[in-house]
């Protein structure tokens, strides 16, 4: 087994270019994805209100932690929408707001709620201040009170997750970053695993069988090698997010690194299963993108699974390791879940990995 690993490493040393290119591509990709998801989503705003009213609204709106509302003139804002630089722009008017968009997207309903709340708060304050005037109450002190309403709470609301003590919050940045890294890693891992298909075809395996190396050692050696390379690459990507782009992992970076172990294992397993089913490299190259893209869609890498209500899709998502990978990564970071809770998704990934790898090796072994 060790000798197989040695051979593999030597091969890598001799021809490292593919590996280097893939790794660099992946890190570049990570930077792109990270940059895409870093910071708040900018929403252009144009207005028909007076400057002071607009400023008040914008101030209220910009308490949002998902969006940043920026005032600009109408043409510029519309131009950004038409050229798809932004998903939507907002037009503010008296007691009404318009969301200008070209295609439907997930952000629309979130912006809708934020607009509604901002308008309602201002409206309420205005009504109260107006009424107060007729009572002859000092406007300034009342305004002060209204702006610090939380001091007057009769009761407090404490939020917790079902599984964890911390309150969950919607963090679309991490959702995006995790989704795309888990998705892209499938390609690089599959690329590493597939080398055994070529080796088998070229007769290297036949010669190895004649050597004292045992069969299980051949498999373990090869898969371990693919696993290590794949894991190294994901690790690099996560380090880019953590140290290069300064993403907030909520202090659970180490946990995420551990969660990636069963995930990479399950992807190695899927790759060997596919390698066992397909006839040649071309077919492998056909099937792998199909599997990775559909897994990413089903597993919630592109959009949170919550917005999916189709029972069929939700059922299918239960059989995809990526679902559990996302669940565990989000659980560890955003919801601050502990190890006991994380054990379930990690266990599921391991279980799937074991099943896939078992079936995969059997199929692969039977191939001529």
């Amino acid at each position: 087994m060790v000798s197989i690993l040695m051979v593999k490493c030597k091969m890598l040393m001799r021809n490292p270019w593919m590996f280097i290119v893939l790794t660099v591509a992946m890190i570049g990709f990570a930077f792109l994805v990270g940059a895409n998801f870093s910071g708040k989503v900018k929403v252009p705003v144009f207005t028909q209100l007076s400057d002071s009213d607009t400023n008040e609204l914008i101030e209220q709106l910009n308490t949002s932690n998902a969006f940043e509302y920026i005032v600009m003139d109408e043409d510029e804002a519309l131009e950004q929408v038409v050229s798809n630089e932004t998903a939507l722009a907002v037009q503010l008017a008296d007691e009404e707001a318009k969301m200008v968009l070209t295609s439907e997207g997930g952000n629309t309903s979130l912006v809708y709620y934020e607009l509604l709340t901002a308008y309602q708060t201002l409206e309420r304050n205005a009504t109260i201040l107006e009424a107060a005037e007729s009572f002859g109450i000092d406007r300034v002190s009342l305004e002060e009170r209204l702006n610090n309403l939380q001091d007057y709470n009769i009761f407090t609301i404490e939020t917790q997750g079902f599984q964890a003590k911390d309150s969950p919050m919607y963090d679309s940045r991490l959702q995006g970053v995790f989704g795309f890294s888990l998705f892209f890693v499938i390609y690089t891992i599959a690329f590493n695993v597939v080398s055994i298909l070529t080796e088998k075809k070229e007769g290297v395996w036949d010669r190895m069988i004649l050597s004292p190396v045992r069969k299980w050692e051949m498999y373990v050696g090869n898969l371990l090698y693919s696993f290590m390379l794949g894991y190294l690459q994901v690790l690099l990507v996560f380090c880019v997010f953590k140290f290069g782009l300064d993403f907030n992992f909520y202090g659970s970076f180490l946990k995420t690194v551990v969660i990636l172990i069963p995930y990479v294992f399950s992807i190695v397993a899927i790759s060997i299963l596919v390698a066992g089913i397909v006839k040649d490299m071309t077919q492998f190259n056909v099937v792998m993108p199909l599997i990775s893209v559909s897994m990413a869609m089903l597993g919630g890498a592109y959009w949170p699974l919550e917005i999916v209500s189709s029972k069929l899709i939700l059922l299918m998502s239960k059989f995809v390791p990526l679902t559990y990978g996302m669940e565990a990564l989000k659980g560890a970071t955003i919801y601050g879940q502990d190890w006991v809770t994380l054990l379930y998704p990690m266990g599921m990934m391991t279980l799937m990995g074991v099943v896939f790898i078992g079936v995969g090796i059997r199929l692969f072994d039977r191939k001529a």
Partner: protein
Amino acid sequence: MMIGQLLKKNIFVLMRNKHIFVILLLMPIVLISILGFALSDMMNQESSTLEARVFLVEHSSEKADAQRFIEDLQQSALPAEAQEGIATAVPALLPIQILKEHVFASEELQENIMFKIASPDELSNIKKSEDASVIIEVPEGFTYQFLQQLFLGQGEKPVLLLLQNEGKQISSGMVEEILANFQEQYALSAALQEENMSMQAINQSDMMNNITITEESVDKRPIVSALTYYTFGMSTMFVFYVASSIASMAFLERDNHVYNRILLSNVSRWSYVSSVACTGLIFSFCQLGILFAFMVIFYGVEIPDLSMLVVITIFLSFSISGFTALLTALSFRSGNANSFVDMFQSVVVTVLAFLGGSFFPIEAFKGIGQFTPNGAALQAYLLVFQEYDWEAISGHMLAMFIYGVVLLGLAVVIFPRKERA
């Protein structure tokens, strides 16, 4: 003349290969269908599909709490009149009752909220089933503490526990918002009290003024649905596989010395490259056509302007023919197995698709996407669906055209002039 013959040969060879149908047609159709299923609800009705399942768990009876408060009140040093005043006000102010009967039972929320009262024993079961969006846990003595705060301003502030399902962030956020509003109402009246002003003095109906927030497209053009977006997103991604499939076929021909024999028959290598590029053009056009037809027939996607769609498809196919020729040239030049094609299939396509917005609207990219051929095509298709005219899409057409010309040019430069033995 020769190009026609070679073209015919290419088409026959490719048609014989069943993989090509899987990769070019089945794959995008499967993916679009998944998308169709997954997103269909999101499309039909806008945000109202989101249903929050709210469970309320009380650890003590609110009535007993209120009773206890009134008994304590009678023991207190307050004047009898004030005692009575408070005691009569209490029944109308019980917070949990208001929550149950007014806040969550209101008509506006009916559509989005399913409200249920559960007993504390059921708590762990509810948590385990993934059904619930949130559980509102009312701790023991909540109402007692609440009333003490409200009327006497003493004791500790009670805590309402909101348990949110980690898997249902959006709907549980909605409930959080509702509760925060509820909380704010009390805070507001407390704040006003300090100014000796009562909530009654304010016209409540004024506050809930009709604020209208509408969705509108630019210049009243149609809004592109999520399904349409992803149909074209996926199509513009999978069209790249035409290039890689044909390039690997060409490479196989070189490997099998078919290419050498073609050269021996006095056909120029440029005819060969042109035939490969033309095959790319024809296949990508057919692939896109079949995919769009499929979408129209099975998913009821309506195409506003067929001629524009066809022209964009031709331009996109032209740039794909550039990719086909370039990939073929690269793999002929390097002579190394299929490494360029593999690389293209696994890395380049994914990155281009990502940049072009096939997976995700390209919001934060500040328009890098439209400089990729697939991104430009996607934008152009979307503009067609918004019923823009030719002028609006001309820039994107130019981008695709330039890609085609530059890539074909590169292919000619790179394609080996002398076949190495």
